[in-house]
Structures are given as structure tokens and as C-alpha cells.
């Protein structure tokens, strides 16, 4: 009576242990966002940063770039996303110096270099804000599939992750967990 119980128990728990072991040795870390497979080169961006200097995306080669499109007068989505990205940078810790968060304005009429700097400075002084003429911005929005309406207040809100080689790797929805975005940035850095 005892032996039947003992053996059945050992078999059941042994089975669970074996499954756990197999999973432990076989799971590979995976991406959490919408992956672009195969990766495509991210379109070049030619704009002006919030210090007035010309900016090109290719100047950030060697770093993971996290791109976001929004406007500084945004009451909800943009500050929320920036807060999540700030948390992601905090989670990355030391590794965050290899990751650059870049925000491109969707509201050239109201956003200036100064307003971008003020807005982003509230989250992380390493975040970069980009401004430009309406035509320059329209080209970037088009290249990244960003819809902009209502004077910039309605806009696509994806977060784009670009790897160190300048390839477009995945997109995230703004409510993605900071831990997940940080984990993916770490994955890309390890490649």
C-alpha cells in the first residue's frame, strides 16, 4: 500500500522534475515585442537635435536605439511611454549607456528644441529630442510608417527598437513592460 503510493509519487514528481530540467536547459531568451524578421535597415534620419546640432541616425551606430514619435504637450500617452522607457533604462543599469532613447516630434508647430529638452529632461537627461522643418519631419514619419493627424496630437504610438548595426528589429506597444524592453535591449547588445 505504502509502496504503491511511494512509487506513484516518485514517478509523478520525477516527471515534473524532468520536464523542468528539459525546459531549463532548452529555453532560449526571446524577444518580447513584434519582431521584424528578417531585420530591415532602419531608414536614415536627418533632423536637428534639441541642442541645435544636426543629427543623423547613423551617428548612433554601435548603440541600440529606441525611437519614439510624440509631442510635448501630450497629456497621456507620450509621458507614459517616456516614463516606461526611463524605467527600462534604470533596469538596464550600466548597460544603459549603450542604449539611446530618441524622441521625434509629431508637432513641429508647437514643439521647439527647448520644449523637447524640458520635456525629456524630466525623464532622463540622456534622452534625445529631435525637431525639424515640417518637410523634414514628414519624410521621417513616412519612412517609419508614423501617421500624424490633428496637428500632431493623434499619432502612431509604437516604440521602435533598432540594433547596433542600424537594423530595425522590433516594435513595442507603449504599455509593454519596462522589464521586457530592457531585456530585449540587453539581448540585442549581446549579439
Amino acid at each position, binding site marked *: *500500500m505504502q509502496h504503491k*503510493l511511494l512509487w506513484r509519487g516518485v514517478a509523478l*514528481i520525477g516527471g*515534473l522534475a524532468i520536464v*523542468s530540467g528539459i*525546459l*531549463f536547459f532548452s*529555453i532560449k531568451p526571446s524577444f518580447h515585442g513584434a519582431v521584424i524578421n528578417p531585420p530591415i535597415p532602419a531608414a536614415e534620419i536627418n533632423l536637428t537635435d534639441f541642442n541645435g546640432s544636426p543629427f543623423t541616425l547613423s551617428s548612433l551606430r554601435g548603440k541600440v536605439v529606441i525611437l519614439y514619435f510624440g509631442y510635448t504637450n501630450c497629456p497621456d500617452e507620450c509621458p507614459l511611454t517616456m516614463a516606461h522607457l526611463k524605467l527600462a533604462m534604470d533596469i538596464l543599469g550600466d548597460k544603459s549607456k549603450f542604449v539611446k532613447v530618441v524622441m521625434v516630434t509629431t508637432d513641429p508647430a508647437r514643439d521647439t528644441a527647448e520644449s523637447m529638452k524640458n520635456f525629456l529632461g524630466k525623464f532622463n537627461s540622456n534622452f534625445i529630442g529631435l525637431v525639424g522643418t515640417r518637410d523634414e519631419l514628414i519624410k521621417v514619419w513616412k519612412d517609419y510608417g508614423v501617421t500624424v493627424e490633428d496637428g500632431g496630437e493623434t499619432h502612431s504610438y509604437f516604440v521602435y527598437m533598432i540594433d547596433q548595426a542600424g537594423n530595425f528589429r522590433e516594435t513595442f506597444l507603449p504599455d509593454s513592460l519596462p522589464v521586457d524592453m530592457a531585456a530585449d535591449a540587453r539581448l540585442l547588445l549581446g549579439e
Partner: protein
Amino acid sequence: MENNNKADVLNQGVIIFVFLAVLTALEFFVAIEIGAIVLLIIMAIVKVGLVIYYYMHITRLNEDSGDDKHSLKYKTATNRLGLWLFLLSDSFVFGGLLVSRFYLLSLTRPPLNQTLGLIVTSVLLLSSFFMNRAESSMEYGDRKGFTASIIITLILGIGFIAGVLGVEWPSALAEGITPSSNTAGAIFFMMTGMHALHVLTGLIFLSVVLRNGRRGLYSAEKHWAVEAAAVYWHFVDVVWIFFYPALYLIGKLI
């Protein structure tokens, strides 16, 4: 499964406890290293199954109670059914809280110390082992064994309360997690508070049973209060077998 001698019964209690302990350790490993939620759920269900079948003796509900409505056997069977129905209703409270936890926090978890969670869980599981031992001892008229095991159960139960209310709660409050700070705080305090309340009433129940036991009120033939206290105590453990992974193991931080 009919066991005919005391040593067998006590040994079975030990075997079940070892299974529970191994599963708890495996659970911890899976949570930390793999994060496979389905596996954690399966293990919780297996643990609960072991406790409900072997410690709570749920199959006794199926026993024939005889036709004599005035017999002890009949009355005990009725009492037993009543207790289980009460526990069923109590399950709705805990079930609701469990569902709420996943509705509110989804697959994220509150920032709790997982090692502390493992320690209090182990204390509670060990207390169930001794509670079962106490009940089994009384079934064979071993009053000394019964008394010793009940006292140990009580001490471990107090240890659990000390761990949750004395360590976990203050450390959460110190970090700014309060019942009203955010949803994680609210659900954490509600779940652990409701559960701790049941542990406390369980401790009162155990104290009464201990006192009456020492007065010689129970025998091998007649000890419904002991069985009731055991079933109630194991129920509280079953709730924790679900609450523990829900609060400490499943989900990502933040």
C-alpha cells in the same frame, strides 16, 4: 485506501510531506530559473490534491453513515458534510481574491521577497504535517503523540503569523506598499490579511482542541473536534498553496 496499523498511517503522513516539500522546492526553482507558469500551476494543483486526499481525507465524505440517525457514525458524517460545505463557501472568498489578483495585476507580481515567501510556506506545510500526525495519533488513541504534535502545529502556526504579519507586512509598509498605495499593495494586503485571519482562527481552534484533548475529552472512537480542526487547518494550507505562487512566484516584477 485502508491502513491497518498506526506506523503505516504515520509513515504515509511522512511520505506525503516529503512529496509536498520536494514539490515546493521544485516550484521555487521553476519560478526563479524558468518562469513556466503552466508548470507552476500544475505543481500547485498536485500539492493541493495531495493535501485534500491524504491529509483532509475527502473520501470520508463518501462513507456510508448507516441508518441509525442517532448513532455517532451518522452524526459525525453529518458534521463532516457541514464542515466541508462551510469550507466550500469559504473557498469562494479566496477564489474571488485569487481571480482579482490576476485581473488587477495580470502577469506582473508585487515586489515581495521570494525567499521570505518560501520560508513562511515551508513553515505552514510543516505545520500541516504535524496536524495530520496529531489527528492520526488520536485515531489510534495515542494521546501523548496527539498532544505533542498539536503543540508543534500551534508553534509553527504562530511562526507563520510572525513571518507574514511580523516581517512581511512591516517590510512592505516600509517600502511604501500599503493597502491604499496601489493595486499591488491592495491585493497583497487583502489576500495575506484574509488568509492570516483564517490562520489566527485556526490557532484558536487548535488551542481549544489542545485544551480539551488534555482534559481527556477525545478518544480513538470519538474525536470529531480533532478531525474538524485538522480539516480546517489543512484548508488554510490549501489556500496558501495557491496564494503563495500567485503572490511570490508568478509574473514579472513591475
